[in-house]
């Protein structure tokens, strides 16, 4: 049945071929990359492309050698030069649904014009090209300004002329907004115009560009788009969406742009700063880039699933940002359009799969790995706290002769009250005499001779219940110390305050397989940190145990000392991510847990320090078996250092005179102050790999627990190979990205910079440089700029300057009828684009022109104004807006809750911070209009602008209006505009005069407080006018 159809088609073709050929004869020779690949990729590659699993009939149309080979049936998909013999074309032209390609069910069809292109291409010899983006970057020669050279070359082909230069005012406003995200001030505009008339426009313009690039505002502006690409937020995302602290990384980005860190270094430090030899503090902070991913702290998550999701997010983000590759498409199967196999995808995953993270985020703070990252100011302040402690230590040292003498006297009759080492000791159970806090439960719990006096003794039946001890929680500092003589080491609970319910929140110290194991538990078993000693304990021997926790909810923050020596431990669990309250836990039991059972052995001198992390020195002192009184009886030379230390502490606590006690107290206080300040210092999540790494596997269908082949790190075959002989790690990968041979990084980066200035990249799909992405509009220019960028030090400021200095950038943005017809999308740039300002720029601009803006570089994120209840209605988080200056900082500092984004930014098209986004949305909705008209901070800006208008703008309405207009639009109003605004103001005034009660209330406090000396009606009318000005299309647009 198929045969007659084909022969029909063949004759049909030979008949109409001439007609088609004639129709297309004027066209230039076809290019596979430009004309054919997009058609085949869109319609054919899904089944006849790189994805091995989906290849139908073993046919690939993306590889010439395969497409031109005879199939088993004998037919050949593509016969170069012979369209009528090419099976692929026959099938494309077929009308029988059985024959037709793509199959009707696929939803794809080729247009008549596309069919003709395929026919022509086969006729011309079916030449293939490698996908352009994987080809090496080649710099074609250009004369004069290369940007203008290539742009004009293309314009000539399109029969278009460039537009004249924009007005000086427009150029100033445009370049100021583009480079700093803020409009020029009136003074800057005047200075620029004066300079232009003196030295010429070009010289004045260049001076402005240099000034703007030096401004710290440049870094703030550039950081915004990088933050969106890096999916930066101040919370974890996912269900709990708890807070995290990454603002030090954000400030690193701002600083890197401002100091013009070369892009290759910018890349290496962010992707692999931790692997550099002796990385600096800043280089470690830089690696926060790949800790900005979402991270789930939900209870009960499968850890392996989210370890994989984290690694996948890092690969997808890194591939998008540096290579414009949609690598994520190869997670479940070979990429359908680009030459990236599933195995290669997991080879990339392996570079990012070794992070020393637990797999479940910590719910209320940074998750491992992180480091303390004080700012320089904070570091200085910490140093002053430490200096105070040193001074206190020195003062104590200075008093040593008197102390020593006094102690010797005291030692004759020490009568020390037990125990020593009392700082922060909240509970001490000596188990020596009846104690109302200690209850023996059931039989088998008695007091028998112990280390000092008697000890709690358990025979495997009863247990002791002591007080409820507060603060034994992961998120608090505490220490526990006791003497222990286990009779049973294979299993059994030593101490437990676990709740009786299955959640078991509390601590458990137990013997297991001979080892001492310690759990801090908020929810069994999804929220537990557990460590155990590597060495086994011997039954029947007294040992001293000190357990300390540093309050960071990490297994690494827990330490076990045995006989004063810190123990090597195994981390069994490390997911204690829930914040617990100090009040949690039930009465503490010795030798029993409802969940584990009973234990045999002895415990003595049980101490709880519920707010302190004891030092190793202190742990050593506690492990002294003798009481101070006993030590005092030893000859000085016979005392061990630990005994000496303990005795000294006992003396200072109990025997010293008030002056000596004060010295000691001052030292203790100063040390507490150091710790307290240190606990408040900001931290930053960084990249740090597990020493032993984590094996990576292909995951079948992308599913976390469907392990396929094990893979080693590696880069895709289609791209240049890694240099030989280097260690194949994340650092090698980062260096490879910025190696001169890499065809993608420079192109993708240059494209994104162009997009920032022109609203659209050469490749409009900035996130996809693959076969399904758009072809570049100006491939030669893209390559020229990419080559220049990478060959000249990856200098981002130079790149920006080159772009904004071009005539192309500086031209007028007016639409003409001719342009509208010939190039409605302005692809060839015969005019500058007119771009809607992004939400963050709109907000910052309103603050700037009204005088509300508070400029302060860096610092913790601030809680901008937002309507009440937005968080509370959707979550258990509570939003408290900041005060004063915090409300008027630049938007880049606004606190970003990932799942409930700042509403104004979300309405005004800001990128979603859930995932990497490298292309700005630009939409036009009524909700945006409502925001700019009515959102309280925009209204506050209107009122402050009105005040400026009335106080600085001159005496007449028209002077005042012209003043305000210049502030917002960087130009004087035209007569018709001025006239309309003057009459508008008069109307508003009349409206408010007629009903003075309606004049807007003015806040009495805060930065936006009203100036009280202005007549209410005047201010109200001017506010209404300013509200109009701030909403003008021209003002919300970069012309």
């Amino acid at each position, binding site marked *: 049945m198929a045969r007659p159809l084909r022969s029909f088609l063949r004759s049909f073709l030979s008949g109409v071929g001439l007609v088609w050929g004639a129709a297309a004869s004027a066209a230039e020779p076809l290019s596979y990359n430009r004309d054919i690949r997009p058609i085949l990729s869109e319609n054919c590659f899904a089944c006849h492309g790189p994805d091995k699993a989906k290849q139908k009939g073993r046919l690939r149309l993306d590889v010439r050698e395969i497409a031109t080979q005879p199939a088993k049936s004998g037919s050949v998909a593509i016969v170069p030069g012979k369209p009528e013999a090419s099976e692929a074309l026959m099938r494309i032209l077929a009308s029988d649904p059985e024959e037709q390609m793509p199959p009707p069910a696929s939803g794809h069809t080729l247009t008549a014009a596309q069919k003709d292109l395929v026919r022509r291409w086969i006729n011309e010899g079916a030449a293939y090209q490698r996908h352009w983006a994987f080809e090496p970057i080649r710099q074609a020669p250009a004369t004069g300004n290369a940007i203008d050279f290539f742009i004009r070359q293309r314009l000539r082909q399109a029969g278009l002329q460039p537009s004249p230069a924009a007005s000086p005012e427009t150029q100033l406003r445009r370049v100021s907004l583009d480079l700093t995200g803020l409009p020029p001030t009136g003074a800057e505009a005047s200075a620029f115009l004066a300079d232009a008339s003196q030295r010429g426009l070009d010289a004045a313009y260049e001076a402005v560009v240099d000034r703007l690039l030096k401004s710290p505002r440049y870094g703030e502006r550039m950081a915004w788009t990088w933050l969106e690409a890096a999916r930066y937020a101040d919370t974890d995302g996912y269900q709990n969406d708890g807070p995290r602290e990454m603002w030090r990384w954000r400030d690193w980005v701002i600083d890197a742009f401002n100091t013009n860190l070369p892009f290759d270094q910018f890349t290496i430090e962010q992707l692999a700063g931790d692997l550099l030899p002796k990385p600096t503090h800043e280089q470690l902070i830089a690696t926060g880039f790949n800790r900005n991913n979402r991270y789930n702290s939900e209870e009960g998550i499968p850890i392996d699933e989210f370890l994989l999701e984290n690694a996948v997010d890092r690969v997808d983000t890194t591939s998008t940002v540096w290579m414009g590759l949609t690598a994520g498409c190869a997670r479940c199967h070979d990429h359908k359009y680009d030459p990236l196999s599933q195995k290669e995808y997991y080879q990339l995953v392996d570079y990012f799969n070794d992070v020393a993270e637990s797999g479940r985020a910590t719910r209320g703070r940074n998750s491992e790995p992180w480091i303390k990252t004080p700012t320089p100011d904070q570091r200085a302040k910490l140093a002053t706290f430490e200096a105070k402690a040193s001074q206190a230590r020195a003062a104590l040292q200075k008093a040593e002769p008197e102390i020593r003498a006094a102690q010797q006297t005291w030692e004759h009759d020490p009568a020390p009250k037990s125990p020593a080492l009392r700082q922060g000791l909240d509970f001490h159970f000596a188990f020596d005499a009846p104690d109302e806090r200690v209850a023996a439960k059931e039989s088998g719990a008695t007091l028998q001779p112990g280390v000092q006096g008697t000890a709690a003794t358990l025979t495997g039946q009863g247990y002791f219940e002591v007080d409820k001890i507060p603060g034994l929680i992961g998120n608090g500092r505490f220490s526990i110390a006791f003497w222990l003589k286990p009779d049973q080491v294979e299993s059994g609970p030593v101490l437990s305050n676990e709740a009786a319910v299955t959640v078991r929140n509390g601590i458990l110290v137990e013997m297991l397989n001979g080892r001492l194991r310690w759990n801090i538990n908020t929810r069994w078993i999804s929220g537990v940190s557990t460590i155990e000693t590597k060495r086994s304990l011997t039954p029947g021997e007294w040992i001293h145990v000190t357990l300390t926790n540093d309050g960071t909810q990490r297994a690494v923050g827990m330490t076990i000392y045995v006989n004063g020596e810190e123990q090597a431990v195994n981390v069994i669990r490390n997911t204690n991510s829930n914040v617990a309250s100090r009040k949690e836990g039930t009465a503490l039991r010795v030798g029993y847990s409802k969940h584990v059972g009973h234990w045999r052995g002895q415990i003595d001198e049980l101490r709880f320090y519920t707010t302190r992390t004891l030092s190793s020195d202190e742990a050593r002192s506690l492990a002294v078996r003798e009481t101070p009184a006993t030590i005092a009886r030893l000859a000085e030379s016979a005392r061990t250092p630990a005994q000496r230390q303990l005795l000294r502490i006992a003396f200072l606590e109990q025997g010293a005179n008030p002056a000596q006690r004060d010295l000691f107290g001052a030292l203790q206080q100063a040390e507490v102050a150091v710790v307290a300040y240190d606990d408040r210092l900001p931290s930053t999540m960084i990249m740090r790999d597990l020493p032993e790494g984590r094996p990576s596997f292909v995951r079948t269908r992308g599913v976390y627990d469907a392990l396929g082949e094990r893979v080693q790190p590696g880069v895709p075959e289609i791209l240049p190979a890694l240099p030989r002989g280097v260690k194949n790690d994340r650092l090698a990968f980062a260096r490879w990205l910025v190696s001169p041979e890499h065809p993608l990084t420079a192109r993708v980066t240059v494209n994104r910079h162009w997009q920032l200035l022109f609203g659209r990249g050469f490749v409009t799909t900035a996130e996809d440089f693959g076969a399904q992405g758009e072809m570049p509009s100006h491939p030669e220019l893209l390559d020229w700029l990419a080559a220049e960028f990478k060959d000249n030090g990856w200098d981002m400021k130079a790149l920006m300057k080159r772009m904004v200095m071009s005539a192309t950038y500086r031209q007028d943005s007016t639409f003409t009828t001719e342009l509208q017809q010939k190039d409605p999308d302005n692809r060839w740039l015969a005019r500058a684009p007119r771009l809607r300002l992004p939400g963050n720029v709109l907000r910052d601009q309103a603050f700037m022109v009204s005088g509300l803006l508070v400029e302060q570089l860096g610092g913790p994120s601030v809680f901008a104004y937002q309507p009440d209840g937005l968080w509370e209605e959707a979550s258990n988080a509570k939003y408290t807006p900041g005060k004063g200056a915090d409300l008027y900082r630049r938007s880049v500092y606004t606190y970003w809750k990932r799942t409930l984004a700042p509403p104004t930014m979300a309405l005004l098209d800001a990128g979603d911070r859930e995932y990497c986004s490298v292309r700005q949305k630009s*939409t036009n909705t009524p909700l945006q209009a409502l925001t700019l008209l009515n959102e309280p901070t925009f209204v506050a800006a209107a009122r402050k602008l009105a005040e400026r208008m009335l106080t600085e703008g001159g005496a007449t309405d028209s002077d005042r209006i012209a003043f305000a207009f210049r502030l917002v639009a960087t130009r004087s109003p035209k007569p018709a505009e001025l006239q309309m605004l003057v009459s508008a103001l008069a109307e508003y005034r009349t409206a408010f005069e007629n009903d003075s009660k309606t004049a807007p209330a003015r806040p009495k406090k805060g930065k936006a407080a009203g100036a009280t000396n202005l007549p209410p009606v005047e201010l109200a009318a001017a506010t209404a006018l300013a509200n109009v000005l701030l909403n003008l299309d021209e003002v919300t647009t970069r012309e």
Partner: protein
Amino acid sequence: MNDDRYHAAFRPTRRQFLGRATAAMGGFALASLLDPALARAAPGRPGLIAANPKAKRVIYLFQSGGPPQHDTFDYKPHLDTVHGQETPASVFNGQRLTGMTAGQSSFPIARSIFKFQQHGKSRAWVSDVMPHLAGVVDELCFIRSMHTEAINHDPAITFLQTGFQIAGRPSIGAWMSYGLGSENANLPAFVAMLSGTGDQPLYDRLWGAGFLPSVHQGVRFRSGKDPVLYLNNPDGFSDGLRRKTLDHLGALNRMRLDVTGDPEIETRIAQYEMAYRMQSSVPELTDVSREPASTFELYGEDARKPGTYAYNALIARRLSERGVRFVQLFHRGWDTHGGLPGQLRARCKETDQATAGLIKDLKQRGLLDETLVVWGGEFGRTVYCQGDLAANNYGRDHHPRCFTMWVAGGGFKAGFTYGATDDFGYNIVENPVSVHDLHATLLQQLGVNHERLTFKFQGRHFRLTDIHGSVVRNLLA
């Protein structure tokens, strides 16, 4: 340059306008811009919607947290005989558990404390915790064999809402807005409303647009002064003054249009006008004070209180009446890990009457036929007890393998129950329905082939149903 659907509505006007070049921009052009008939034409994807679709719009009642199927609709008398016994290994069948119960040493079976009865002509089983809903079972199509892939809230709810477990895809309502367009120029095509409290939070992205243009994101209607963010003029700005400022703004923008020729300005003017219309249409919509007493008999007295589920259900009807495509209620607090009986009673007290009232109300207004009402959460709950099993108290953990949802109206079979689970309510034994299948079937009733509702992003044609889903014909009348 901008593929925003709202823009599409204005494109013809823009072209006409440019044809007139920058000739006198008088009252004529303004009139055409403000003509609601033009603004109304925010179409869906051309050629996508089949002729005469069964349903025109959706009200989705999302019960966030995962309602327990054993205690509501999936009656399992067998549990009475095995109550307190260990769940047999044959039932688990290698199933993964959440980390919350994986550490439990015992998995005792918990029967439901609630009494079940058959109701209506359809004899559908409903427990006594939902007495009102029991009265409308003959309108409902129960799917007892829903299953999902995710076991934790965020991935599971994201999966139900976007067809994918990881954030980044458009929500179902955004897809509808994109595909079906808007029927009302003065209201958004997709409205989301929140109620309830509980440990499980909700996220913007659940009604977000993902990679679709932001105009398709759900507009969150809230209780209080501003039902839509920033709807009200600043204090002291009367409506008359707002009108004046918009007239001046429009006139000045048109002057700029004369200079620049940028058709985008025209769109912008139109958006400000639509904002102005919303300032009156939304308060009218959310003001329920003129609803007759009979309305509150149906929905319950809570429906007078903004912010409650009942009020939101009533607003959902009012939105649907006005042609809003997709209305989604999210009610929190169904995550019954412990203290299930008390929690479930509380949730049903908050929602049962209003849900049933909405069904009756739509029915009596003749709207049920063309409105799909969907009820359900993100997964089911386990047959075994989480935590400690007491005489009158128990909890259930997350369970992805089966759960019950129901759909009413829009051409789904009424008074029908589909699919079945085993005696333990643990595994599906008959007619499984995946999340993708449900999506495909809902789209089908709206006249849309789920494989053709696509958006190209990152080189791929994305669908709500990803690469899966089949229409479940047996659910359809």
